[in-house]
Every structure is written in C-alpha cells, then in structure tokens.
C-alpha cells in the first residue's frame, strides 16, 4: 500500500502553478482549523493562498470539505477535479466521497476511523477501508493510512486529530512547506492552553510517517 517518498519536499506543479490540498471529514474533525494553519504557513512561505471552507448548515454532522490552494498562481478557491495534490481524509469514507477530485498524481492520506452517517449500521453494506483503498488505488498508487484518531487520543486531547494529520503529511515530505514553519503556525493558531499537546500531536504524526518511510 505504501510507496517510499523522497526526502525533498514536493514541488509545485509547473503547469497549474499551485499546490492543491483537499481536506475532508465530518463536522468537529478540525478540518477548518487545519485549513487555517496551512493557509498561514503557506503565506509565510511566500505563496499566494486561497481557501474555500464549509461553514454553517453543512457542519451539523454533515460532510465537510475544505480546499487549500497556494503557489505563484492561485486565484480561485476551488480545486479542479483531478488536480488535487493531496487529499487529507480525516474520516475514512469521506476519502471515497471526494474520489472524483483525485487524479493520477494525488497523494491520499486516510485516517482509518469511520463515522457512520445517521441510520447506517455497521454491517450494512457500508464500504470498508480495504474496499475504499482498493478503489482509490485504481486512480493513484500513493495512498497512506494512519490511525490518527488513536494517536490523537494518546496525546490526551482527541481534538488534536487535525494536527496529527498535518504532522503525518509533513513527515512524509509531501508538503512544499517547511516543517518548522508549519509547526510554528500550528502553535500560533491553537489555543494557548493546548500548545504543548499539539506539539506532541504534530510529532506523533511525523514519527508515524518516519516509521512508514523506514527511517
């Protein structure tokens, strides 16, 4: 399932001139905060940034998606389908829901936790992780699965899920954003009381990525 990633951070596509991250999940996963962190870090890295986020009605237990685009050319906030560089799925089945945004070059990060929509029971023909990964592999081989919810719980604060995810993607060297800069922006944007726990969460994500990469 995993492929080795190179040590150098990924570059921004010369053709589209922007790096496109699609973060998806369910309300409460911290998708909007993750987007905000990525946006600030990308700006400090010197990029032009645009995002589009789900606020309001869609947050009431609904599916949440957030677009982050940055580069020398990022005018509009939406990512054209297929031109996603990274799909960050905070909930496993949401990766499948947004599969049409995935292209041949997309790297997909899946948190292995499921949140079942209301009225769905576990055994009801609901796609499982293996099926989701198998389908997505038809489009791209670059799929990474992480137990981010468990890792977040290990820190003592499950709300650090989004920062574990960011640590993981940074640890995989998939982001054209300096890791230290990213960490600084995480610590700037999380509540003062939660700084230490988020530092731990970020490191847990990085360590997990290193393990996968065999470092």
């Amino acid at each position, binding site marked *: 399932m995993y492929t080795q990633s190179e040590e150098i951070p990924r570059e921004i596509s010369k053709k589209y001139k922007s790096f496109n991250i699609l973060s998806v999940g369910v309300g409460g996963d911290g998708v909007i905060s993750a987007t*905000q962190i990525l*946006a*600030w870090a990308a700006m400090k890295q010197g990029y032009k940034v645009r995002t589009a986020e789900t606020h*309001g009605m869609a947050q009431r237990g*609904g599916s949440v998606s957030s677009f982050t685009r940055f580069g020398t050319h990022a*005018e509009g906030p939406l990512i*054209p389908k*297929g031109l996603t560089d990274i799909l960050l799925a905070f909930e496993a089945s949401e990766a499948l829901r947004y599969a049409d945004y995935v292209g041949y070059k997309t790297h997909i990060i899946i948190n292995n936790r499921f949140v079942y929509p209301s009225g769905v*029971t576990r055994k009801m*023909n609901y796609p499982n992780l293996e099926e989701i990964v198998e389908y997505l592999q038809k489009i791209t081989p670059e799929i990474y699965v992480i137990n981010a919810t468990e890792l977040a719980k290990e820190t003592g604060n499950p709300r650090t899920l989004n920062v574990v995810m960011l640590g993981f993607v940074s640890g995989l060297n998939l982001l054209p954003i300096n890791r230290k800069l990213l960490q600084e922006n995480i610590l700037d944007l999380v509540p003062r009381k939660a700084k230490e726990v988020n530092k731990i969460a970020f490191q847990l994500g990085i360590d997990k990525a290193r393990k996968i990469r065999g470092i």
Partner: protein
Amino acid sequence: MEIPYFAQDTPGKSVIMLGNEAIARGILEAGTIIGAGYPGTPSSEILKTLAKMENYFPHLKLEWSTNEKVALEIAIAGSMSKVRSVACMKHVGVNVAADAFMTIAYAGARGGLVLVSADDPNLYSSQNEQDNRFYGLHGLVPVFEPSTPQEAKDMIKYAFEFSEKYETIVLFRTTTRLNHGRGNVLLGEIEEPQKEFGFDWDRERWVCVPSHSRVNREKLLNRMERISNDVNESELNSLFISKKNINGTKYGFLSAGIPYAHLKDALSYLEIEDKVSILKLGIVYPFPRKRIIELLHSVDKLLIVEELEPIFETMVKKIAFEEGFSDKIEIHGKDILPQKFEFPAELIIEKISEFLNIEFDQMEIPENNLNLPPRLPMLCPGCSHRATFYAINQVEKKLKKQFINSSDIGCYTLGVYKPLAAIDVQICMGGSIGMANGFSKLYGKEKPLLAIIGDSTFFHTGVPGLINAVYNQNDMLIVILDNRSTSMTGFQDNPGTGMKITEEPGTRVILEDLVKGCGVPEKNIWVEDSNNIDKMIEKLEEAIEAKGVRVFISRHICSLLEMSEFKTKNISPPTYNIDNDECTGCQICINQFGCPAIIFDEELKKAQIDQSLCRGCGVCTYVCPQEAIYEEEI
C-alpha cells in the same frame, strides 16, 4: 492579550483572512461607526468580527437587530446623520430589507451607506440561490462585487467613499466562496471615524411622500446617469485587450467575482492568458458601456462567465445590438455555462476549452461500485428539537389525526429528515405562522395546525403572523422552540437571551409576556422543558386539542451550548447505557427518535450507545418501551 490580526493597526502587514474578516477589516478601515445585521450563512462572521474589533475600537456601534429590515433602517439613520454605516445580511435577508432599500435608493445617502449581501450559489445553507445583483438593477443602486479577500477589503473601504461621492447606497454583493474562503490580505490604514456628526435636517429629501419622492426619483435617474458614465473610468473595472488570436480567431471574456478568479486559473492552466481579451467587472452595476464596446471591437467571439442569472449577458447583447455588433461577433453565456449552482473549477476549464476549440485531456474516473450513502446534516446528539419533534409525532399517532406542521428556518428545519419527518412546509423566515394562518382558513375546523418556529425566528418575523392569527381568529398551535440561541448560524444572541453582540447585557424580552401582549390568553399558553418527554406529550396533547390561537413554548438550551456550559462549570453529564438483556432490538429508538449516538449492532441485534457522541440528555430513556436504557451510577 495580543491584539487579533484583523484589529491590528499595522498597515502593510500581510495576513491570512477569511473573506468575511476582510470585509469587516475594510469596514473598520473606512472609519465606519454603525454596523447592524441579522445572522445568516454565509454573512454571519462579518458582524462577529466587527464585534471583536469593538474591544479595540470603541467608536464602533454594533448590534444584532431583530431582522434585516431593522438592521438596514439603523444603517440608514446613521447615513442620515453623516456617519459611515453598514448593514450585513444573507441574500434572502435582503428581501426582508427590500422595503427600506427600494426607497432609500431614491433618497440617497449622506454618510457612506453600504448594504452587504452574502449570496449563496449552490444553496449550501439556503432555501434558494437568488442573484442579488438584480437588486441593483431593480433599485437603481450601484453594485460592487469582489473576487478575492484582498479586493473585498479594499473595495468595501472604497464603497463608503463612493457612496458619499454620489450620495447613493451601495450594494456590496458577495458569494459563499468569497465569504467563507481565506486569502492573503495586506492590511491598510484605519481611517479616523467622523468626529463631528449630526442629523442632516432635510425634510424634502428624507420624508418620502409622493411629492418629495417624485423629485428624488428625478435625482436618482440623474445620479445613475452620472455613475454610468464614471464607471467607464473606474479602476475596479479592468480591461485587458490582447492583439493575439487562437487559430485565427480573437476571443474575449467578461466576468466578475468568484467566477472571474476561476476563469483566471483556467486561462493560466490552458496557457492562453495573453492570447485572449478580458473585461473584469468590480462594479457590476451600472455597466461600463464604453469598456464593453471596446471589448466588442476587439474580439470575434465573447464568452460571458457569470454564475446564476444571465445579467451581464443580457446587457452585453443589448449593447451589441444597439452598436451594430449583432452580425459581427458571437456572444455566448448561458448556452455554454449553466444557469444553476456554482461553477466547479474544472467545469470552467472544460467549457472554455470547448469554446476555444482547443484540446484538453480529461481524466477518466474508474467506475465506482461502492455505495456510499449521503451524509446529510442532522440535529446534533442531545438536541432538544429532536425531543420536541418526537413528542409531536407521538401525539399525532395517539390522536390518529394528521397534522399540518408548518416550519421555519433554523436548525429545527432538519426535523424534515427521517426518522422524524415532522415538517410538512417551510418557505421563509416567519413563514410557519403566516402559512398556518392560511391553512386555518381552509382546515381550521378539522385538522390540527402547528406552526413550529425557533426563538430568534419568532422575534425576526414570527410576531406579525401571531398578531394576525389573534386578530383574524385563525386557530393554530404555535410551537416556539426556545433553545436560547440562534444556533444554526453560530450561537448568536437574540432578544430572548437579552445579551448584546458586544457581550454586554441588554434587556431580555420574555416570550410568555410577548405572546400575552399579542393577545393570546393565559389559558392558551403552555411552557415545558423540551427534554421532559412525558410532560411534553401530555401538555402538547392538551394544547393541540384546545381551541383558539395557542402558544406552546418548548424550552431547553441548545445542546452544544449546554455542553460548553458543563465544561466551564466542570460538570460531567450523566452516562447512559443500554441493558443488553432488556433490549429486544425493536429499534424504536432508531426508527422513531434517531439520535446519532444510538446505533444498532447487527451482530448482537441490540441498540448500543456511542459514548463518544452521547451528551447525556437522557431523552432516549423515555423513548425505549422496554426501559432498557439506564443512567449509570457513578
């Protein structure tokens, strides 16, 4: 405490801002004093951000008004007093404010007067996707529309200046992807607010009786003629003429707002940015006729890229006809791009390639046989609205009568979805009671008629419907869902909570007193805690069976607020569990109540409580006929 980035007086500093924060920043930078509004997605964060700025800039006078019409009227009074004033609302809120809008368009403005409309193409959180650019055409009011957060900040700041220069209200139109999208913003200077102001005594202008309005009408037309002329020179409308062609044809585009941003990306992606002409409108009404003619002169084929209604298209075709271009150039718009919903970024690339007749390799998505049910928004675990709907459904079953349940706009509209399915009609704010008045004329004698409305919505536009019912003796039961918050839009306060936007105490309006004052007799008013199901069912039955105009106040704080109250007070809510020996697997808790925290285990054939979701409201203990759900002892 460090001053938040949006309130820092640090011109030139580069920050990331949400579109709505950038709009608030522009309002602050313009030296605005008055800001009023009513919460509504996607507009709510504008006033919320201004309220946070108020800590550092106490000259700001802000409020959540009871509805959008009141909010605009407050801004109008500010303008009449020569201070810069703004009213913020979602697109459908402008309909509520339209009465004031259409006539202040005549009388004009003194202090800069801006109405921010947050439109919602794609209906992310709205009942329609109306295109409020039409309000500009309708009222003869200039309309601005930004494409990025930076533009939003700069343009709204300028809109106040523009408003004063031409003495007109300005409609500042935005859309969801601008309001709820972030981008780089360079902070600007914060202007000093007017130090000296006072009411501008001018009865002939401000008293809009027919004799005065005839004069104002003439002034309005003259004003618009002057603006129509000046917008040709405005920097907000930028025209790029390319001398190049693609396969012998000269192509052009006209766009504005978010579609313009995606158009730019598409042209860059297709590597043809320098090969086509583009007119970008920042002032989307009135139309810069001269610039459009220039564009028409420079192209063979023109594509108008606008979401929703073909407003630019109609205007450009009219100008092309009048100027004799009809046979010379092709003008496309809604024949290529859809009239419904927002434009996905890939759709713009695809349609432009089609228009330009150039190759674009599209990716084949492999067939997906996995069935993924939709994840619809729903009432939260522990939501008191679920308890009220459950109780209403139980009474309906017991009485063996079919109710017509009119509902309103708020979280509780989610009661339409299964398993509750407790809502039959919903159109607009306050409409529940209005429509129940109509149903009462037809079925008042035979069918129980319920109007189900939230606390904030009742204050917004529910009250006139209630007075109408009392006056005309239109029998109905009004159920006010009083959860002490305007929850759907982010827990704003309202007259029922009595707290102001600045978090200072105001005067609380008591619902019981209000309905009594509207003429509902004491015997026709019931009050109960929504989560006290047995009492709810008993009292609701009584209320539904009674005659006359009745009001049932179902009261319980929003579960999200209750959770945060628990947290601050360090209270842990009770833990509930299901006794596997008692649970018969009947699934009544799932099929009739539907709390997301209760799941059915297909292996055990028993219901289970997901402790990570359960908020400990305990309502499900009433629902279970086997009494299998119990509170754990600590």
